[in-house]
């Protein structure tokens, strides 16, 4: 499965897609990037006159690149559409991320058993500084075609 095919299978609409490019994916992990352009919808309110990327969006970005892209790759031999429900996360947020920053997310599979995927995920900014890190898990849910 190519990186392009994985991106095409992501279930998110434009307003909630936090993956720009997938740099690498294999059985053990995924790596990708996203740039938080300044007109993203949440900057208007988080915060008033002081835009900072919400931690919940950073967590979502980590999950989309690190967990969902990897999950789609891991079940590539199954001829079904797959969605992933995040079931738990424990993340430390170390540095703020401002508008127009580009981040790189890297995930390492901890286990994939009984359709549960658990990963160690980290995010770095363009200076290579660690922005957030933690563990994220989700259940892969297959949907019958048609």
């Amino acid at each position, binding site marked *: 499965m190519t990186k392009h095919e994985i991106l095409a299978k992501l279930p998110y609409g434009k307003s909630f897609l936090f993956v720009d490019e997938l740099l690498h994916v294999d059985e053990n992990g995924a790596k990708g990037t996203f740039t938080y352009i300044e007109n993203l919808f949440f900057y208007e309110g988080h915060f008033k006159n002081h835009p900072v990327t919400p931690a919940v969006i950073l967590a979502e970005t980590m999950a989309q690149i690190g967990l969902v892209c990897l999950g789609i790759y891991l079940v590539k031999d199954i001829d079904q559409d797959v969605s992933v429900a995040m079931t738990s996360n424990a993340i430390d947020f170390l540095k703020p991320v401002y508008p127009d920053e580009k981040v790189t997310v890297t995930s390492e599979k901890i286990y994939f*058993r009984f359709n549960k995927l658990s990963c160690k995920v980290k995010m770095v900014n363009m200076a290579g500084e660690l922005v957030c890190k933690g563990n994220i898990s989700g*259940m892969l849910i297959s949907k019958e075609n048609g």
Partner: protein
Amino acid sequence: MNKEQIIDALKTIVQPYSEETSALAHIDENTDFINDLKINSANLVDIILDIEEKFNIEIDNDSMAKMLNVKATTDIIAAKLEARAGQ
């Protein structure tokens, strides 16, 4: 390890995954993980992984599918332990 010992060990494993204090206090063979202990599918996977580690056994997909209550789970653990002892 007899069945009572297995159930005791199971109680310890299951405890962190359920908020149902009353059901947890009265765990027996008839306790259902989903209906009585309100454990979701993601935490059920973690329970199975904890069982594998605690008893040093491997749980396959077919066994996992049956492990929805204490009785079935205890039977599967006992059978796996017996199979290992016979090797």
